[in-house]
């Protein structure tokens, strides 16, 4: 029974990813990504990583996917649903990807890793402890990064800045005179 659900989830995860890879429509690709992300969260739950799974849904579904959808809606014309994601030469990409996947699976089976049966249990407290003890520096750096990211994204999309960039493409003389 557990395996049946697992196989279902796995098929969704890989199928979503394949939909993303193969879809001619950007919105369908986004939906495939959504499906894949949710299924990956489910795979986390299979491995007793509930906190990570919920984080995955919160950040990816609630954040990244919404942003992606926003960008799709803001950037592509809303009429041409089905052909706004053109592909380039497919064959060499397919070749290289298949070779890569083959190598990776070869590496997996030739590596001779020893595995232990996993243990189930709550993880939130341990993750918190790790973040505040061993990985405190990383944690702080990530928060700094996020602040920088927020400020950066805000600055990048400021109206005046964009306009200025457009203006300086054409003629920068006017600006200099304005400054005087």
């Amino acid at each position, binding site marked *: 029974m557990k*395996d049946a659900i*697992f196989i279902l989830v796995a098929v969704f*995860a*890989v199928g979503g*990813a*394949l939909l*993303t*890879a193969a879809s001619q429509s*950007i919105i369908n*690709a*986004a939906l495939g990504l959504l499906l894949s992300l949710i299924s*990956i969260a489910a*795979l*986390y739950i299979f*491995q*007793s*990583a509930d*906190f*990570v799974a919920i984080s*995955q849904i919160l*950040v*990816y579904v609630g*954040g*990244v996917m919404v942003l*992606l959808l926003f*960008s*799709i809606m*803001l*950037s592509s014309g809303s009429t041409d649903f089905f052909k*706004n*994601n*053109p*592909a*380039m*030469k497919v064959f060499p*990409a397919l070749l*290289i*990807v298949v070779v*890569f*996947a083959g190598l*990776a699976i070869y590496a997996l089976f030739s590596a001779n890793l020893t*595995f*232990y049966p*996993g*243990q189930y249990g709550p*993880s939130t407290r*341990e*993750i918190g402890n*790790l973040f505040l003890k061993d*990985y405190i520096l*990383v944690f702080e750096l*990530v928060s700094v*990064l*996020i602040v920088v*990211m927020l400020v*950066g*994204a805000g600055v*990048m999309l400021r109206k005046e800045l*964009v306009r200025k*960039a457009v203006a300086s493409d054409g003629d920068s003389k006017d600006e200099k005179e304005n400054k005087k």
Partner: protein
Amino acid sequence: MTSLLSENPNSYLIISVLIFSAGMFTVLTRKNILAIIMGIELMLNASALNFITFSFFRKSTLYSGHVFAILIIVLAAAEAVVALAILLAIFQQRKSVMTDDISDMKG
């Protein structure tokens, strides 16, 4: 090793490889920057899945894998925000999000 697929690490790792390959294929073939970003997200997720799998099956009391998965999630979110901000800025100027149209830097 148990006979259950869901308790066999290799099944997770193979799923991860497939998702990663799909992401790579997306990045390789798509012209739309948005699709490329999606491919990158797929690759990041595949690697996070690997972290969790190794954390669970190699030494389950060690939660560092979870920490790294969370870091990947957070950094992916940050990356997506910046990438999409850049994308929108590009779109405002050029009215296009296809990589062919913004390859001014080519030799």
